[in-house]
């Protein structure tokens, strides 16, 4: 059994209430930072922990905090990114639904560290039930004296508000999120300046993912060094993995980083193997934007070593044979799934979610979707495959924000690893409508290990 830091008490009845959460040791981190630590010491502890941003980019949280500008007389803001919209990712919803106080406690700890007195939790609008849950948790915390003026007689003041989004994947990008929080269209800003210098209302701002903020609680309770002992290499601590697709036990799992991918898929403690006796064909390991890998490459690297659930191991081999941990949205495809159809589906998603601000993304995402739809519906030409690769390449790296890359990678990687399936679709348009390409030679027939 791996160690759990965030979901330890997830099955405790009433853990969503302040009372039970406190009984289980909740708000100790708030007491500790307010009574015993300076803000800089809190930042130092988070740096020591090696915590990396859990939203997808994996940037070290402590370092991000230390970039925050601190000009005199200008307010600073902490904004929590709860816009969770990356297909395959549903861990933040789970955390906010079941242990809302873990996020609120993390918000207080982090706001104190950054010297913020007003903090916002931006939650995607579709999660209205979670917004209500968080608002209730904030009220409870305020009534108990963990929020408001002069918290626990420390002289520190903090208010937290929950802000709903309006339905836009792009608002998960931190500058688009800030625009949205300012009541505008979610168009990403052109960087620099970065939010650490000019963020919300032009003031220095840190934007952190829900899980990153919640992780500061065990870091403060146990110390950064203890946290850094968990995990492997520069992938320290635990990570919430959202597991979905054709597995036996879909759900959210807290893993110690470094867990072998094969164990994660086949162990009964986690996904429990593939559902309905099917075999694994492919995996999207970190949310829809990271490269899809065929079964053999997800369990072992090209060099033949076991692949681990960690930032480094998943990206071993670069984009040629590797992928990324991303947000931890782990989607497993069985042998019956059609890669062409799924790639078209993802392309449609990015087309739908492009903000339309910059031309390569606005025009290119729609173009890719149309070509993929053409192939999927049986009208593809052989040259369409190379055209897709080329259009993806022309979007990648040329856009304002990472949505362009996120749209290009799934298409490029699907063709890289499953080109034969695309060709089969084009050569057998009639057949492709009634059956799937199935498990091809790139997928090793895997036996469950347990």
């Amino acid at each position, binding site marked *: 059994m791996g160690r759990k830091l965030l979901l330890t008490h997830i099955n405790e009845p009433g853990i969503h209430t302040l009372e039970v959460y406190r009984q289980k040791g909740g708000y100790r981190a708030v007491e500790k930072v307010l009574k015993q630590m300076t803000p800089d010491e809190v930042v130092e502890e988070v740096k020591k922990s090696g915590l990396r941003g859990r939203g997808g980019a994996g940037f070290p949280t402590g370092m991000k905090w230390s970039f925050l500008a601190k000009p005199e007389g200008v307010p600073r803001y902490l904004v929590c990114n709860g816009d969770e919209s990356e297909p395959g990712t549903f861990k933040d919803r789970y955390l906010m639904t079941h242990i809302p106080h873990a996020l609120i406690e993390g918000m207080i700890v982090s706001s104190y560290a950054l010297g913020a007195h007003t903090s916002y939790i931006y939650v995607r609008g579709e999660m209205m039930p979670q917004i209500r849950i968080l608002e209730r948790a904030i009220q409870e915390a305020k009534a108990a004296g963990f929020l408001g003026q002069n918290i626990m007689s420390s002289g520190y003041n903090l208010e937290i508000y929950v802000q709903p989004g309006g339905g836009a994947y792009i608002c998960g990008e931190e500058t688009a999120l800030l625009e949205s929080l300012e009541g505008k269209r979610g168009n990403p800003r052109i960087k620099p300046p970065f939010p650490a210098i000019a963020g919300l209302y032009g003031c220095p701002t840190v934007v952190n993912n829900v899980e990153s903020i919640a992780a500061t609680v065990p870091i403060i309770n146990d110390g950064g060094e203890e946290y850094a002992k968990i995990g492997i290499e520069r992938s320290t601590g635990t990570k919430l993995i959202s597991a979905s697709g054709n597995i036996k036990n879909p759900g959210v799992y807290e893993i110690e980083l470094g867990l072998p991918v094969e164990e994660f898929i086949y162990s009964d403690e986690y996904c429990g193997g593939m559902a309905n006796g099917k075999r694994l064909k492919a995996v999207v390991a970190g949310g829809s934007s990271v490269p899809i890998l065929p079964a053999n490459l997800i369990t072992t690297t090209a060099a033949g070593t076991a692949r681990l659930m960690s930032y480094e191991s998943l990206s071993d081999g670069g984009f040629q044979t590797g992928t990324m941990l991303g947000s931890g949205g782990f989607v497993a495809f069985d042998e019956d799934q059609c890669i062409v159809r799924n790639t078209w589906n993802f392309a449609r998603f990015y087309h739908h979610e492009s903000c*339309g*601000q*910059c031309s390569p993304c606005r*025009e290119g995402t729609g173009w890719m979707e*149309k070509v993929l739809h053409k192939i999927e519906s049986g009208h593809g030409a052989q040259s369409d495959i190379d055209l897709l690769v080329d259009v993806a390449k022309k979007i990648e790296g*040329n856009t304002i924000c990472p949505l362009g890359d996120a749209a290009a990678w799934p298409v490029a990687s699907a063709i890289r690893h499953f080109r034969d399936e695309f060709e089969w679709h084009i050569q057998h348009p009639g057949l492709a409508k009634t059956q799937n390409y199935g498990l091809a030679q790139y997928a090793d027939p895997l036996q469950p290990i347990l």
Partner: protein
Amino acid sequence: MAEENKFTVSIDGISVSVDPGTTILNAARQIGGDIVPPAMCYYSKLEGSGGKCRTCLVKVSKGSEKDPRPMPKLVASCRTTVMDGMEVQNITSPEVVEARKAVVEMLLINHPLDCPVCDQAGECKLQDLGYEHGSAKTRYEFERRTFERIDIGDKIQLHMNRCILCYRCVFTADQITDKRVHGVIGRGDHAEISTYIQGVVDNDFSGNVIDVCPVGALTDKTFRFKSRVWFTKPVQAHCACEKCSGKVTLWYKGEEVIRVTARKDEFGEVESFICNTCRFERKATSDWTIEQPTAINPASVIGANHYEQFQPPAVISEDEKLQTANRAQLLRTEKLK
């Protein structure tokens, strides 16, 4: 540092010394010539403009004297400020030339090929870009995007199908006029310039959206279909106007003033914004004091149907890779000789 409080930056091997805070694009404009990146959305007189069209992407091969590391991606030159000792590659980087071609292709896939009936033809930035960086054939085989036509009043014609969403007209309405009634509605490739509910774009300075539009999406209704611009004779003129500088360009067809616009500089930007009275109401020669014929950029079709020859920096003639990257331009120059 070359001078006190100045940054030295080199663009395609040509050095220039500029004030800190200057963007790469504006540093390039100080040098001038073919090394100036094209700009479809940036407009120096409109705060917040730029960064969107991606035609001005350049490569920063050396970040600065202090931190010489190159920047990992191509950057929008209109929104990236120079550092002392920075080295930038524009047309001397095959990667940049390739990316620019890509952007032009993206801008064109849904743009209607209606130049023959478009009033902007001849002074259209997209037409220029397509000529310089576009391919002769499109690889896009789907129906082009169209929008429902909307009427925004009797002065300005909105032709959304041609719009490239540069946002210049939105910034203009925000910053130059006293009330913005149009904006960008919708999202992604279906975002459109619109008033949303039926309304007219009409106030003292609203006509300036015509001048800032890089394509034929916003044109002058009072000039509509009156003449191709290359059959007109532009003349500098002024009047004592209470609302604006009164400095304009009159566009003559024979003895008749068929259009009034603001004066534009060599980068196609207006020198000063003009009011709607000057633009739409003063169409008689007697309203104006004539100064002189407008100097026309020979690169423009208005300048008697000939294109300026491409004058690449010497480094291109010495490097095979760069010659390949700029092949189309060089061939065209050969033909024009």
